Each structure stands twice: as structure tokens, then as C-alpha cells.
């Protein structure tokens, strides 16, 4: 059982290694933090809860309009970007990216990681 935790940590650690990624976290769809790699453990619970809300709200909005389930939510701000993707029915993955790096590789790795997390929590 603690092995699953180790495996989730591994997925996050790999994601954190991608250039430009400053922090990442796995959270449940209902906003509970599963694991995080962040500078400050302190804010991680709120970070998880808010990101789950954003993704949930985005999914509710687009589905309601007949546009299907969004692939991801990207929030751009002056000092960086936040990306949340669904990882199966139960979880989502969130990364914080600096403001310079191109997103191509990061989105690719994020989707891969999300697929892995989905398997782990299936």
C-alpha cells in the first residue's frame, strides 16, 4: 500500500524534472491533496482544492455548452502558468510552470504522467 504512494511520488518527481516545471501535485477530483512536490507544504492543500475546483468548473461549463470535456486548464499570469489536467475519474495533475519555457514538451510530459497516474489509481 505505501508502494502506491512511492509510485505516485515517482510520477511527480519525473514531471518535476521537465525543464520549466517549478512544482507539481496530484489531487483528487474532489479537491484532496494526494501528493505534492512544492516549495512549501503549507499551501499545497489549498492549491489542490482550488485547482480541482477550476478543472471541475471548466468541465461543467464546456460540457454544458456541448463542447465536450476540456483537455486541460491553463492559467497564465505574469509570473508563471498553472496547468491542470484530469488523470482518470478520480484524480488530476497540476503543474506550475515558469513564464519563459515553451509549453510543448511540458504538455506532452504532463499527458504522459496523467496517463500513468490514472493507471496507478485505477
Amino acid at each position, binding site marked *: *500500500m*505505501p508502494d502506491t504512494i512511492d509510485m505516485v511520488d515517482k510520477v511527480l518527481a519525473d514531471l518535476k524534472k521537465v525543464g520549466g516545471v517549478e512544482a507539481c501535485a496530484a489531487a*483528487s477530483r*474532489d479537491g*484532496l491533496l*494526494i501528493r505534492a512536490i512544492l516549495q512549501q507544504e503549507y499551501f499545497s492543500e489549498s492549491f489542490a*482544492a482550488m485547482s480541482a*475546483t477550476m478543472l*471541475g468548473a471548466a468541465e*461543467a461549463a464546456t460540457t454544458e455548452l456541448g463542447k465536450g470535456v476540456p483537455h486541460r486548464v491553463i492559467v497564465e499570469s505574469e509570473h508563471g502558468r498553472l496547468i491542470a489536467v484530469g488523470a482518470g475519474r478520480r484524480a488530476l495533475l497540476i503543474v506550475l510552470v515558469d513564464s519563459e519555457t515553451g509549453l510543448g514538451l511540458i504538455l506532452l510530459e504532463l499527458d504522459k504522467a496523467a496517463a500513468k497516474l490514472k493507471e496507478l489509481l485505477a
Partner: protein
Amino acid sequence: MIETGIPKVDEFLGGVKPKGKNLVYYIQHGVEGEIFVIQTVYNSLKNGGTCVFVVSSTTPDNIRNLFKEFGWDIDPYKNNLFFVDAYNPLIGALSNEKYVVSNPDNIEDFSKVITDVLKELHPGTIVFGSLSTVMDLCGETETIEAVRSWNKLAMLYDHVMVYNFTAWPYSRETLDLIKKDMFNAVISIGGIAERVIFGQYFGILKSDWAKETKKSMLFRVLRPGGIKLFIPKILVTGPFDAGKSSFVHALSTRAISVDRFGTTIALDHGHVDYKGFSADIFGTPGQERFDPIIKLLSGESMGIFLVVDSTNPTDFVRAKQMLEITKSYGLPYVVIANKQDLPGALTPEEIRKQFNLPDDVPIIPAVAKDKIGVYEAFEVLIDKITGESDA
């Protein structure tokens, strides 16, 4: 007497506080179990007791530093804290401790030192930092025999024995003996990865002087702070403008809200550190147009605060409906009768009648904006969550 200093455990073991008893922390490997004895030692030092710490897997100085890491100053108690050093001799280092086991891999040697300690010192708490290490060095059967005789001796001299035991893959018989047979009380500590709850729990497996509780509880280890009982999600819900956000902010050590024009549109999130508990609070919006978000956020809750405006009985229908939306059937909940300071506020009993609430649902009068009643409500809900029937 045994006092563990672990939140809730003492309550569960409470009632009679016998002398000469022993207790084992039975720890699944891979879980942060070391902290349990550390917290027990600090607690009994703080209460004026004498403690002996038997170290087998690290140096006494490392243990002293650990106390510091958790934010506990042991200097004032240093005359009451003794170490039995069974580590330094193992790595060929010198030891400055009063009690030293010169051959930690020899059970007779070990027993001799422990016997001296038990006979010489005033009744106190003897703590083994790692019984499993002793077992690895001296052999399973040998160690079990020795522990049996130490426990008898401790009973004779009114000491309390506390062991940390990591359940490595020893023989089935050994593990069963430790879990079921050898000790007066067994507290099991393990990890769970159930659906999306990842964490660590402890539960009382056995206690021969208190009524048995099969309840287990999540915990997390804070540095500083030690063991805190962990409640991953408590939901705060209720009709529009009942004071949910005020309640979350009044209760929380720190909180974040997403609100526009004074009303919550996504959620309030707060974190509470109170009386050994660490809990995360999720406050939902109240208006019906946000119902999809409420549904999304309400999964995995362990308890619910239903906040109502005591001056506005017309909202009670919506309040009941919100309990349904959050799928809170069967979950413990507490009703917060908020805005008690306003004229025309109904009393909790009037609310019970109007609401048609069963007698066992607590209704706490509160003024959330002035922090009145919020901690009482928290304690009542926590007691319900942790299964205290007399709450």
C-alpha cells in the same frame, strides 16, 4: 501509569490508569512510526515523570536532536531523562551515557543492563526506540523471552514499558505473539492508500484495561508539532448568506476564499490546527447555480457543518436540500445556528422544531463573525467523527 501523549489515544485508553503495564507501537514498515515513542517520552517528561530511552538504531544524541526537530525542549528535564546506549558500542564508538550495553548483540548483556535500570530507578517510563533492532541483533525467540521477563520485572517495580516495534517480515509466530499476546496494549500504525485517501493511521488493537475501541484514525506528523490527528475534509455548507465563509475563516488557522461581491463563488478552503487535530475545511457556495461545484467538492468528506441563519427560517428548506446535494447521508453533521446576535434569532431548540431535526443532531448557537461558538462546534463534530458516543 501509561500516558502516551498521542491525541485521542489517552482518551481511549483512559479511565483506569494502571501502573506496571506495557504497551507496544506495532508499526508497519514504511510508516513514520518513530515519532510515537518520542512523543510519549516528551509527554511523560512534561508531566514530571522519569524516562529511560533505550536506543538501538541510532545514537542518543540523534534522539536528543529529534526532540528539537519536533519543537520540544528537553533541557529542563535532562535530569529525568536517561539513555541506555545500545548503539555506540555496536559501531565501536565511545558512549557518554550512564547506561551502556557493551554487547548489544548479546541478549544476556542487554538484559543485565535493563534489569539494573528497572531496579535502580524510581518508577518511570522505559521506552525502547526499536525493539525490532534488538530482535535483529539478538534473535527472535531470545528477544521475546527477554521482553517477557523485563515486563514482569517492570510490573514488580511499577515501571511502564513502551516499545516501538517495526513489523518487518519476521516469522508469523513472532508477529502474532507481539500483536496479540505479549503486551497489555497494542497500538497499530500503518499506511493506507484507499481510493484517494493516502495517509497513515493508527488504531488500538488491544488494551486489557480499557474498553476496546476498533476505531482507527488518520494522522500526520508535523515538524515541529509531532503527531496530529488528520481529518482530510470537513465540509461547510448551508444556504446563501448563512455565514459559511465567516465560519470557515473564524475556525481556520489560515484560510483562502474565492469570492466576488462578498459571496463565495468557488470555495472557501481553510486549515485548522486545534487541540491535536489537523483538519482541512471546505466551504461550498450557497446559491443554487453553483450546485454542480458543491457536488464536485463534497466527495470524501468525513463530517459536515451545516450553517444556517437563525433569523431566516425560510432558508431551512434549502439547508435540508443542501444536505442531500452533498450526499451527506450517514455522515456526522452539526448544525450551526449562526447570527445569534441578531434580533429575532431563533434558539437552537426552536430551530430543531422548525427543522424537524432528530435529537441526536447537535445544534450549536454561534456568531461566526465574532468567533463565538465555532470551536465548540468543531469539538462536537470531531467527537462525532472520532466516535465518542457521549458527545
